């Protein structure tokens, strides 16, 4: 009886609901068996080219992952040294995880961030007993995670200052911030990456230009800071003037007012929008491929294009990295819900 009323309420509440239920049911019945058949029943799981070729069109070739996963995950990083990016990534993910847990929100996080990043770059780059691996050989998941973490950790604080600057009473600062936002936000990320990679060195003395990875990181930070600044400004606009007056009336100065009164409220409002952008930042690191930094999607292309036998199994490869991207983005999304709960009072 209970089951019956649940079905009625949730699946057949009215004509439209009933129609939607039937349409979905038909779609599931029509496509799910075929999908499962392709993904599981007829699929080849072992790294066997001949079996994969034989199953083409009827079953998925997960063997391509089994065969190429190290190239996909680590890119062109030297095979024998791949324990280094693996360890570096585990350390970095550990740091990020710890930074998200309230229990660890102490001053110890500051030295932890410094130490983990130093160790990260030492492991990746080498020196001090490890062989040196130049940055153009870094790739795959470690590069994706590193780029997005630095882009977020750099762009978000910068965006707060830019957003405050755009609302400043000082005309010079206000104009500077407005021009910066409009200029940077008005061009595609791809063109910023091109400029960082190819144009910038032209203005520098030969051989004096910083590493392409550094230039790309700076480009990412500047681009996303302009985007986030507008999101943050939206939050700042939402704070009633009375809050500023109350802060002023008890003698708080400008920075104290921003830090203690305005930003905690403004940032709480924009959590969903900010995390939305964080997710975009994470996924859009895939654009650095165009300046020959082979992060996860770039590494996948290399892994498959370099081997004629496995080249046909791109779909399986993309499904694999899509699952990786989804895992990280979904985690961010869930974390954002938790943060929203923490900052909601009364």
């Amino acid at each position, binding site marked *: 009886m209970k089951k019956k009323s649940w079905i009625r309420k949730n699946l057949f509440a009215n004509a439209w609901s009933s129609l939607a239920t039937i349409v979905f049911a038909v779609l599931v019945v029509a496509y799910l068996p075929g999908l499962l058949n392709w993904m599981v029943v007829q699929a080849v799981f072992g790294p066997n080219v001949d079996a994969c070729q034989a199953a083409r069109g009827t079953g998925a070739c997960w063997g391509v992952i089994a065969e190429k996963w190290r190239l996909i995950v680590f890119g062109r990083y030297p095979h024998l040294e791949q324990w280094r990016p693996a360890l570096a990534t585990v350390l970095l993910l550990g740091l990020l995880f710890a930074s998200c847990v309230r229990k660890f929100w102490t001053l110890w996080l500051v030295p932890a961030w410094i130490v983990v990043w130093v160790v990260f770059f030492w492991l990746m780059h080498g020196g001090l007993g490890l062989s040196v691996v130049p940055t153009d050989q870094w790739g795959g998941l470690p590069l994706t995670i590193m780029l997005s973490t630095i882009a977020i950790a750099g762009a978000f604080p910068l965006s707060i200052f830019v957003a405050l600057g755009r609302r400043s009473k000082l005309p010079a600062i206000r104009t500077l911030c407005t021009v910066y936002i409009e200029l940077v936000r008005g061009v595609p990320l791809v063109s910023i990456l091109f400029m960082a990679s190819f144009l910038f060195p032209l203005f520098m003395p030969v051989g004096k230009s910083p590493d392409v990875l550094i230039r790309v990181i700076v480009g990412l930070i500047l681009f996303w800071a302009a985007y986030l600044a507008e999101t943050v400004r939206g939050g700042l606009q939402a704070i009633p003037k*009375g809050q500023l007056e109350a802060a002023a*009336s*008890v003698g708080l100065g400008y920075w*104290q007012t921003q830090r203690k009164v305005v930003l905690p409220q403004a940032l*709480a409002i924009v959590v969903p929008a900010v995390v939305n952008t964080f997710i975009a930042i994470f996924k859009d690191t895939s654009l650095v491929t165009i300046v020959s930094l082979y992060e996860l999607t770039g590494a996948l292309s290399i892994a498959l294009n370099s081997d004629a036998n496995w080249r046909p199994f791109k779909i399986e490869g993309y499904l694999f990295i899509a699952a990786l991207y989804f895992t990280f983005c979904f985690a961010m999304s869930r974390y954002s819900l938790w943060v929203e709960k923490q900052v909601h*009072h009364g």
Partner: protein
Amino acid sequence: MAEPIILFEKVNKWFDGFHVLKDIDLQVAAGERIVICGPSGSGKSTLIRCVNRLEEHQEGRLVVDGVELGDDVKAIEQVRRNVGMVFQQFNLFPHMTVLENLTLAPVYVARKPKAEAEANAMKQLERVRIAEQAHKYPLQLSGGQQQRVAIARALCLTPHIMLFDEPTSALDPEMINEVLEVMIELAGQGMTMVCVTHEMGFAKAVADRVIFMDAGQIVEQAPPEEFFSNPKSDRTKDFLSKILGH
């Protein structure tokens, strides 16, 4: 009269060409309790907000607690430390508990140790009879409770002057008295108070002087007995008949 604690001399202010304060001359003695009333748009809120420089005046001299208000930020911050303000809309910080609202300025502006600031905050909360709500957030309280917290927050810096800008106008009728009681108590303790309000009962009970403003000018000022029983100008009579006439 001894050195006034608040001194307006020929103060003028414009909002984008609109002349909102016209040649204001006003002296408030330490310990004096002033009630300012007048129709909306008369400039009474603007006047009180000039005292702690939430609004700036363009002409004339304004000296508060021995400090002349001008562009000097340090002077402004000093005045604000010594002048408490209570707003119509309470303006509590909604992301902080009641106690955090009260200790914010003592800790970050007056640089008091946190324990001392909290002990004092609890004392002020008891003064406004709301100590049991110390760990709640403002939005969990009623309007009257929030306004009492706002008064306690202003008291935490041990101000020399308290400004009230229509403190009961946003309250439901049944909550007005609990706020007025606290204000009357405060008046009895010798605090210098400048209060913009239409609560004429409060004015009669505690004010040393009632000031009537209209169109940016101080039209009339007198002790409450005289002000209410024998108003001189027609504008005052008209105003009083409107707010007392039913």
